[in-house]
């Protein structure tokens, strides 16, 4: 009798804790989970296509991309013919470019970094710096909305005072079930929308569910955007650090 009572009391004491375990995640946690989905793999090997859309023209570049953590990345352009064979190497804070047409290896200086990578709306800065969405912001859930048929947490991220980010705040729509970044709105300090990022065509690649189509839309320019499509993606293949070297830039196929 006594044991049963104590067991019951223990259960009663513990039950709120048990309930909590099944409770909602903190906004920071949600972001962390989404971030890890996006960036968490040790290495990635992918084949992608990037389409640059402008009011009067459109261009598509195809490339292979290898990454290791956040520090190393190697990109090889495979199409169109004029740009084929060009490669970009990122090692921590440095970015290099190999151009077979002129057989030259160039280190990209800060001035190149601020323009769009290969003319797109992604800045080289975006690619190099990659501030932490988890650590550089304060997060709060401001609602739940449906986007593209999926129910999402709507999270507002306020840039921390000390953080090395240029944005004022961000709004992110994160899929409740699979923690995918489906939509992001980036705002400057005055509260004006500067950029929108949309993720769609969610597919399973190498066992993981990811949006395979990402659209980057600058707010203040008419008719302009950049579309990235992931054709193939493999995660956690072994890639040695020596792969990310200047010599390899010239050899990689």
């Amino acid at each position, binding site marked *: 009798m006594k044991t049963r009572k104590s067991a019951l009391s223990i259960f009663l004491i513990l039950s709120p804790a048990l309930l909590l375990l099944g409770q909602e995640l903190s906004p920071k946690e949600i972001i962390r989970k989404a971030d890890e989905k996006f960036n968490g793999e040790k290495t990635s090997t992918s084949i992608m296509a990037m389409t640059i859309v402008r009011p009067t023209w459109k261009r598509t570049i195809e490339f292979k991309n290898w990454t290791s953590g956040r520090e190393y990345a190697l990109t090889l352009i495979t199409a169109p013919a004029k740009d084929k064979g060009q490669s970009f190497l990122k090692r921590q*804070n440095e970015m290099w470019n190999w151009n077979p047409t002129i057989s030259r290896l160039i280190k990209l200086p*800060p001035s190149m970094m601020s323009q769009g990578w290969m003319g797109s709306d992604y800045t080289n800065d975006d690619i190099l710096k990659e501030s932490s969405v988890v650590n550089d912001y304060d997060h709060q859930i401001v609602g739940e909305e449906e986007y593209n048929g999926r129910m999402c947490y709507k999270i507002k991220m306020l840039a921390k005072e000390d953080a090395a980010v*240029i944005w*004022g705040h961000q709004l992110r729509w994160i899929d409740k079930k699979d923690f995918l970044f489906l939509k992001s709105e980036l705002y400057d300090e*005055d509260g004006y929308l500067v950029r929108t990022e949309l993720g769609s065509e969610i597919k399973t690649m190498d066992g993981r569910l990811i949006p395979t189509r990402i659209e980057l839309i600058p707010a203040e320019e008419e008719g302009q955007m950049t579309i990235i499509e992931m054709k193939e993606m493999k995660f956690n293949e072994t890639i040695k650090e020596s792969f990310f070297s200047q010599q390899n830039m010239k050899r990689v196929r």
Partner: protein
Amino acid sequence: MIWKTAWKNVWRNKVRSMVVIASVTIGIFGGIFAVAVMNGAIAQRVDAALNEEISHIHINDPAFRDNYDMQLIIADPEQVISTILETPGVAALTPRTMIAGMANTATKSTGVQIIGIAPEKEKEVLKLYDTTIPGTGDFFETESRYKLAYIGHELAKELNIIRYRIDQDVLDSLAVKNLPVELLDKLSAFSGTRFKSEKAFKKEMKGALSLKEQNAYGALIKEEAWSFRARSKMTLTFLDKEQIQTGAVFRITGVFDIKNSMYEMSQVLVKNEDMMGLTGMAPNEYHQLVVRLNDTELTEKTTTSLREKLPGLEIMNWKEIQPDLAMMTDMVQNFYAIFMVVILAALAFGIVNTMLMVVLERTKELGMLTAIGMNKKRVFRMIMLESVFLSMVGGVVGMIISKILIGLTSSTGINFASYAEGFEALGFAAHIYPEISTSFFITVTVLIILTGILSSIYPALKALKLDPAEALRTE
């Protein structure tokens, strides 16, 4: 005696004398004032450059200014600095590091020259801190845990840190300032708009407003639409000592406006201590030392002396750094003098004519004077004195009027607002404060007296040639 007589003679024909005096007054006044305006503009420009931009002397590695290579630091800096400070004439010194980089905001980016300074030392040498636009902050005064940057107005506009926007607040304050209703209506069509750039703003305004409206209210609208967010963020990226890219987010501590668009577009001032952590440069490594002298007149002398003491470094004074400034101050002095001479020459015609008439109409009287024994020299001198008095009275009145007017306008200044764009692009303020040196007044006085004397020669000679007998017989 002659003086008194000559003076009285001048006033015998009041109207005639007044005409001559009036012409001299106007000529002198006009000339001096025009010169004062020009002089004021130039003096302002030179002062601005010396006080706010370049100061007196720059010292750096001989090859540094070719390409601003960050590896070219000054050798043996402590020794060099103490040598400079010991040199007579030197008032203060500020050390700087200079690195080329990129400045980025959420929407724009541009190349800049990043200058790492020691704010306290900087204030002793340059008055740039005085030019902070009210409401935008200060010159590194407020303590902050962030890295701070002090930038120019033009750069702030270029990076969209300063934006033009029209929203309800702006419309309301324009209404309070009595903007006509039709104009407010036109502008409310833009409510909620934040313009992409200053150019875009101007273009839209030009399209929406009539020319009359632009001229009358353009400046006011622009002022109200101007918006700035204190402590805005900006990233600076550059290469460090090892040629690796680095950078950080800086917050704007203040925005300066020195009416020199070129300078404002490119310079970003930051604390050297903030830069050191990023560049990997050591505390005592500098690219350039900027020196202020006790007196601008000491420039040449001090430059020579420094060159002797520091043969391994390039020593440039402001005249060499900006030769157009030197040219302006040097060449223009001659021009002023020539201008006054021309005016006085024009006046001389009038004076000669008048004096001739004076002589001819007093033929009888002069003849009589000569007949009773007044010697020719005295007659000559009397005529000359009359001429000089005529010129001097006009001259003195002219100088007094110009001095008063210069005094008045030198504090309020004259506004050349409609030419502002051209002026400011060249580094001149469009608001000019006339000024003139006392030595110029003295020069003018001397020139006036000379004119009086020279103009009297011909008429006086005529007077001397008069035959007393003939003269007495004249009617």
